[in-house]
């Protein structure tokens, strides 16, 4: 009998020592998907035959002494903007529902090379932007802690499926918070790595200059394992960084002594005021870091609205350019949320876009200066726990400044980390951010915090 809830690290240890068969593990996840996903809608396409075939192949490799490492034999889900050879990749949209790629995305190839077992394609907000939507070919994913609640977006299927134990980890993408938002609302760990660290080649774009691919898993350690498999230079992605990749898991010492952390409190106390439960949980997490030996001090940056305006203007303008042809010819084939947000994006001028990318340089410089004497900054990932799924405003991205967007603007590694639960059992999170290419420091702090707190011991009951 395979446990309902295993981390990647736990499963990898059992697989390596041959105490757990990848086939058995894969079958147990397929059984769980069959039993629970009618409540969650986290998958838009399950691939049972392909998954079992891949699992049998990995089992053969391991039996023959060709163990590849901690992703070998691990069941994984792919957000349905990651292209998969011969398997439809739709962006959760009617507009691309017949799109069958001829090749895997570069990051999917890397995950398969590491031995992952692809279980299927996961729900997303339409083209990683518009949602939750009820007028698309597939329903929106639901929060596993309370299925009347929103998962956050856009990596909604990954956010729902990992905590529920349907997969052990999954891919996300993050242009304004699409990894960190669902990670926050669904209580898992999700890191948006440094811009350029993971190739975007073969991933449907939302906004070229802000798009980040990244891992989502139950723990920071699992994110480190997954990031190791996904990161690396790809000449096919013009923004791919040719930068040395460290051993991320080795950085997880459990120790934060000497780390200098700046807390951007005004982002969540005044600029986008968090509710008391969220504020208290983040302040308590900051104190925890101090108890563990980090130095913590408050810092002030430009108002959150400035960061959000810069990022949202760039994101929506680039998205409009990408989808312009289809918007002009097939407007009502898009869901209402996506298309109406895009109609707003069309109102900005070319000069507005250029001013935003000039502002971007100023804001990048501002964060660099603020972090000169710091290793990390922390702030809220979301202002509240997950709202009801039918109460999310159509224009949520623009009517309240995003807490996650600042670090898409700067390309910094940023992670959502669970830091408690509301009285009704909904997860709360903070966001921790490092300097560019210091992803290992972010993972180290998140992992140390997880080890020192009880939150990873709690899973949703479905």
């Amino acid at each position: 009998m395979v446990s309902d809830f295993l981390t990647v690290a736990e499963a990898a240890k059992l697989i390596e020592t041959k105490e757990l068969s990848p086939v058995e593990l894969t079958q147990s996840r397929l059984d769980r998907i069959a039993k629970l996903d009618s409540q969650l809608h986290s998958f838009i396409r399950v691939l049972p035959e392909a998954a079992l075939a891949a699992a049998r192949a990995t089992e053969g490799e391991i039996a023959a002494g060709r163990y590849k490492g901690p992703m070998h034999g691990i069941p994984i889900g792919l957000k349905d903007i990651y292209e998969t050879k011969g398997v439809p990749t739709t962006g959760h949209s009617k507009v691309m529902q017949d799109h069958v790629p001829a090749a895997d995305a570069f990051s999917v190839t890397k995950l398969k090379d590491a031995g992952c077992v692809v279980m299927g394609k996961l729900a997303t907000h339409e083209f990683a932007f518009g949602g939750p939507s009820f007028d698309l070919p597939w329903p929106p994913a639901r929060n596993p802690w309370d299925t009347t609640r929103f998962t956050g977006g856009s990596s909604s299927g990954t956010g729902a499926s990992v905590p529920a134990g349907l997969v052990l980890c999954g891919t996300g993408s993050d242009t304004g918070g699409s990894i960190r938002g669902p990670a926050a609302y669904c209580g898992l760990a999700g890191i948006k790595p440094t811009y350029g660290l993971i190739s975007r080649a073969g991933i449907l774009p939302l906004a070229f200059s802000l798009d980040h691919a990244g891992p989502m898993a139950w723990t920071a350690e699992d994110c480190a394992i997954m990031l190791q498999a996904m990161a690396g230079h790809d000449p096919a992605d013009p923004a791919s960084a040719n930068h040395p990749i460290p051993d991320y898991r080795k950085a997880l010492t459990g120790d934060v002594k000497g780390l200098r952390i700046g807390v951007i409190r005004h982002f969540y106390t005044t600029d986008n005021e968090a509710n008391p439960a969220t504020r208290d949980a983040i302040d308590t997490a900051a104190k925890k870091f101090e108890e563990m030996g980090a130095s913590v001090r408050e810092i002030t940056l430009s108002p959150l609205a400035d960061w959000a305006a810069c990022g949202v203007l760039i994101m929506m303008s680039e998205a409009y350019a990408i989808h312009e042809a289809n918007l002009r010819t097939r407007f009502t084939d898009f869901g209402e949320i996506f298309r109406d947000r895009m109609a707003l994006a069309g109102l900005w001028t070319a000069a507005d876009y250029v001013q935003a990318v000039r502002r971007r340089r100023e804001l990048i410089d501002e964060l660099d200066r603020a972090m000169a004497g710091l290793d990390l900054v922390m702030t809220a990932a979301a202002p509240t726990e997950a709202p009801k799924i039918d109460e999310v405003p159509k224009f949520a991205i623009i009517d309240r400044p995003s807490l996650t967007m600042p670090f898409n603007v700067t390309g910094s590694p940023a992670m959502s980390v669970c830091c408690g639960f509301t009285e009704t059992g909904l997860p709360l999170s903070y966001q921790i951010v490092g300097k560019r290419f210091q992803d290992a420091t972010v993972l180290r702090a998140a992992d140390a915090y997880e080890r020192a707190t009880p939150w990873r011991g709690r899973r949703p009951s479905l």
Partner: protein
Amino acid sequence: MTRAELDAVLARLGLNVPEKERDEIAANTLYIEKMAELVKKPRWVGAEPAHVVKFPGAFPEK
């Protein structure tokens, strides 16, 4: 932006937005206008944009 102004812009863009969605879009144009204002800070004429993030060593430090 008034509803008439929105209709004119949508016509220029070639977007066939359903009638029932237009009032709500018009009501939210204020956020778009506010964001455009927020990114227009006073700056030197030669202030360059950052089309993507600044990688270490990619540009000379000021």
